[in-house]
C-alpha cells in the first residue's frame, strides 16, 4: 500500500512538471501581449517596454521558465499580472468558493443520481426507466450555460424562489473568514442567518452544475446494477428468500458502486475545475471566474497557477479513488 502511494505521488510530481512545461509554452505562444493588454489601448510603446522589463517578460522563454520553476520549488507561484497579488493568495481566496460549489454539486449528484440509477435498474423497461433515461440524456446533452440561464429565468425571474447569484445577499453580514467555505464559517460563527443565506445562494448553481454528473452517475449505476443483479450470487440470494431490500442495498449496490467510484472521483475533479460557465452566470467568485479573467488578460502566472492546482486536484482525487477501491474491495487490497 505504501509503495503504491509513494509511486503515485512520484508520478504526480512528473505530471505536474509536464503540465508546467505545456502550460508555459502554450500560454506564451498564443497571440496577444499581456503587457499591452494590461496597459490598455492607450499604453505607449515606451511604457510597454518598461513594464515588460520590470516583469521580466523580455528575457528568453527558457530563462523565464526555469526562473518560474525555481520560484515554484519555494511554493512561489508568482504575482498575478491582473490582480497584482501573489497567485497563491488569489488561489486561496477563490478556491474555497469552488470547493463549496463543487461539493454541493457532487452532493446533488450522489443524492439524486444513485437512487435514480437503482430505481431505473430495478424497474427496467418500465416508464420509470424511460423517464430516468430521458432525464439522464438531457443531463449529458444540455449545455450547462443554457440550463443555468433557463433555471435563473424560471427560479429567479418568474418564481423568485432562489437568488440570482453571488454567495450571500447584499444585506447579510458575512461570517469571519476562517476556511473560506461560507457554510462552514457560518456554522463555526453560529451565524445562522448567513448559513441559511449561503445555502440559499448555493442551491441553484449546485443544481445546474451537478445535473451533468447526476445524469452520468444515474446511467452508470443503472448499468452496473443490471450487471450485478444478473449474477449468480444475487440469484442465489433471491432463491434463498432474502428480502429484496437486503439484496439490493447490501449485496448488489455495494458491488455495483465499485466501478462507479471512478466516475464519482472524475466527476468531482471535473466539477472542481469545470465550473467556469456556471460561475460566470451565477457571479460565483470561484476558480472558474478567476481563470476566465486571467485568460482574457493573458495573465500567465495566474493561468499557470490555476492549471497546476487543477492538475493537483485531479491527481489527488484519482489517488483517493484508488485508495478507496482498496478499502471497499478486498480483492484490490490483496492484489
Amino acid at each position, binding site marked *: 500500500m505504501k509503495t503504491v502511494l509513494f509511486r503515485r505521488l512520484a508520478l504526480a510530481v512528473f505530471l505536474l512538471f509536464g503540465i508546467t512545461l505545456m502550460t508555459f509554452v502554450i500560454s506564451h505562444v*498564443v*497571440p*496577444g*501581449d*499581456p503587457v*499591452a*493588454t*494590461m*496597459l*490598455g*489601448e*492607450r*499604453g*505607449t510603446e515606451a*511604457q510597454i517596454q*518598461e513594464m515588460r522589463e520590470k516583469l521580466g517578460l523580455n528575457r528568453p522563454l527558457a530563462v523565464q521558465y526555469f526562473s518560474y520553476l525555481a520560484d515554484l520549488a519555494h511554493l512561489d507561484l508568482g504575482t498575478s499580472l*491582473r*490582480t*497584482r497579488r501573489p497567485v497563491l493568495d488569489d488561489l486561496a*481566496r*477563490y478556491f474555497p468558493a469552488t470547493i463549496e460549489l463543487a461539493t454541493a454539486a457532487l*452532493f446533488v449528484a450522489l*443524492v439524486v443520481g444513485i437512487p435514480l440509477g437503482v430505481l431505473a435498474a430495478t424497474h427496467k423497461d418500465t416508464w420509470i426507466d424511460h423517464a430516468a433515461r430521458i432525464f439522464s440524456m438531457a443531463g449529458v446533452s444540455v449545455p450547462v450555460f443554457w440550463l443555468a*440561464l433557463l433555471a*435563473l*429565468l424560471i427560479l*429567479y*425571474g418568474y*418564481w*423568485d*424562489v*432562489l*437568488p*440570482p*447569484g*453571488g*454567495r450571500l*445577499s*447584499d*444585506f447579510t453580514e458575512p461570517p469571519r473568514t476562517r476556511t473560506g467555505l461560507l*457554510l462552514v464559517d457560518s456554522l463555526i460563527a453560529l451565524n445562522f442567518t448567513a*448559513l*441559511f*443565506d449561503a*445555502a*440559499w*445562494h*448555493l*442551491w441553484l448553481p449546485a443544481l445546474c452544475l451537478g445535473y451533468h454528473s447526476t445524469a452520468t452517475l444515474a446511467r452508470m449505476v443503472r448499468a452496473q446494477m443490471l450487471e450485478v443483479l444478473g449474477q449468480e450470487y444475487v440469484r442465489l440470494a433471491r432463491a434463498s428468500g432474502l428480502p429484496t431490500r437486503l439484496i439490493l442495498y447490501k449485496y448488489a449496490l455495494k458491488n455495483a458502486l465499485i466501478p462507479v467510484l471512478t466516475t464519482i472521483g472524475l466527476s468531482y475533479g471535473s466539477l472542481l475545475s469545470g465550473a467556469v460557465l456556471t460561475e*460566470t*452566470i451565477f*457571479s460565483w*467568485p470561484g476558480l472558474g*471566474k*478567476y481563470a476566465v*479573467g486571467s485568460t*482574457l*488578460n*493573458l495573465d500567465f502566472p495566474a493561468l499557470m497557477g490555476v492549471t497546476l492546482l487543477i492538475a493537483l486536484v485531479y491527481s489527488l482525487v484519482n489517488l483517493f479513488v484508488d485508495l478507496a477501491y482498496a478499502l471497499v474491495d478486498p480483492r484490490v487490497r490483496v492484489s
Partner: protein
Amino acid sequence: MCRAALSLTLLAVLVVFAAGCQRRGPSPNVEGAARDVLVVASGIDAISLDPAVAYEFSSTALCMSFYDTLIRYENSDYTKPLPSLAARWKVSRDGLVYTFYLRPGLRFASGRPLDAAAVRDSLVRTLRMNMAPAELLADNIAPERIRVVDPSTLEIRLAHPSAYFLSTLFNPAAGVVDSKEALAHEVEGDMGSGWLREHSAGSGPFTLKSWERDIAVVMERNENYWGTPPRLRRVIVKDVKESTTQKMMIERGDVDVAYDMNPLQIEDAVARSGRVRALEVPFLRLYYLGMNVKFGPLSDVRVRQAIRAAIRYDDLLAMGSGRQLRLRGPIIKGLVGFDPRLPGDYDPDRARALLATAGYKDGFDVELAVSGGPTVFGPTREDICAKLQSDLAAVGIRVRIKTMSSTAYLELYRGKKTQLNMGDWGADYPDPHNFAHPFGHSKGSLTQRVQYANLRLDPLIDKAGRELSPARRAKLYAVIQRHLMMGGPWATLLQPTRLLPVRVEVQGFRYDAQDPMDYRTVYKEPQ
C-alpha cells in the same frame, strides 16, 4: 451507529438547503430597509483602484467617487469647467501659467488637510509612476513646473499653451491622492500603489470600504466630504457580468442601476416591469472603420474614398437602439469642432467610379479585423462588420471578416498588421484634441497603427490644440476633418447614445459621460 450518523448528517444538510429555498417576497433593496443604500450591477473590469494606474472603464468610474479633481464638468457640458477642489483659477495672458486657488478647509477622508502641497505631490506621483494614465498629464505638465505658491495656491506652468489642459484634469489621473497616506504603505518603492489597489485615500464623496474581486465594490459616504454630503450612506457595486442577470435583477428590484444591459433588454425591462426607467445619456465614443494605408489597394486615396462612399450609414444608425448619431469626422457631438455639415454621404455610384479610376473595377479582396463582442448600442461588433461586408460587396470589395479576442486584435493592430479594422474610441478627457490627435496626427496612437501620416495636418492639429478661442478652434477642426474625410484612413461610422436603466425609486442621478458613477446627488424615493 455509522449509518445513523450518516443519515442525520444527510438530513441536516437537506434541512439547511430546504430552509433556504422559499419564496422571497419583495427585495430588501426595495423594501425600505435600504433607502440610503444604492445597489448597482456592473461588470467590473478594474485591475487597480489607484488613480495613477486606473485605466479601465470601471476603475476610472469608481476612482472618480474617491478622488476629487481641481476642476470638474457637470451634466456632460464640456464647454464650461466648474470649480471643484479649486474654488477659482487664473490663466496668464500667454496661456502658459495656471494658478489654482483651493477652497479653504479642504480635508482628505482621513482628516488630513488637503492643501496645495498635497495636490502637487499627487500630480507628481502620477507622473513619476508613469503608468498609462500619466500620458494624459505628461503632455502638458512636468513635475518641475508645478509650484506651491502658498498652502492654498498652486501654480502650474505649461511648456506651451494648451486648450485642453483643463479638461485633462477631469480624469482620475489628476485625482488628488493623500500621498502621505499612500507613502505610509509603500512597499519596495511602489509609492503605495499596492495598497491603493484595494484602498482609497482621497477626498471624494465616497471612500472605498471593501473590494472583493469578482463579488462587489462597497463604498461608503465620506463624512469629511467638503461639499454637500451625499444622501446615500453606502453604494454597493456588484460585479455581475451577465447582462441577462442584470436585467432580471433590476426588474426584481435587487439592483437600482444596471450598466451593461443592451438597449433591447432595457426597452423590454422598462415595458415589462413598470418599475424601471431608461435614462438617455450622452456617450463620448465613436465607432470607426480603419484602413491601413500600406496595404495594397488601401494605399490609394481613391479606394479609401470609395469605401467611405460605399457605406450605408443610415442602416448602421438604425441598428440596435436606433439612437446613434451620424458622424462625418472623428470629432463627436458635445465637443468643439463637431460638424454635421461635413461631406461624406452614401453614394455607391461614386464609389464604383472611384474604384474603377483607381484600377479596381472588379474590386479586390481585403481582410477586416475585429475584436468580437457586444457594442454599447446593441448589435455585436461582428454584426456591424457583417453590415460593412455587405455594403462593400455591393461595390465589388470582397471583405473577409477576421474575428478575434481583444488581446489578439490589439496585438495585430498595434503591430500595424491589420488591413481593414473596426474599432471604437472613447474620450479620456472631454476635448476634441483627444480625437483629432489620435485620428489625424502623424504621431497619433491610431494613425500610427494604420501607418497614415499627413505632415500638412500635424501643424494644424498642434495649432488647434493650443488655440484658446473656441470659435477659432472650431474652424481649425473643420479644416482638419475635411482633410481626414477626403484622404484620411478612417470611415467614422457613428456615435452611440447610451441608455441607462434605473429603478423608478432612484432620483437625482446627474449622469455625466466622463463620471458615470457620480452618485453625489442620488437618493431613493419610494414611488
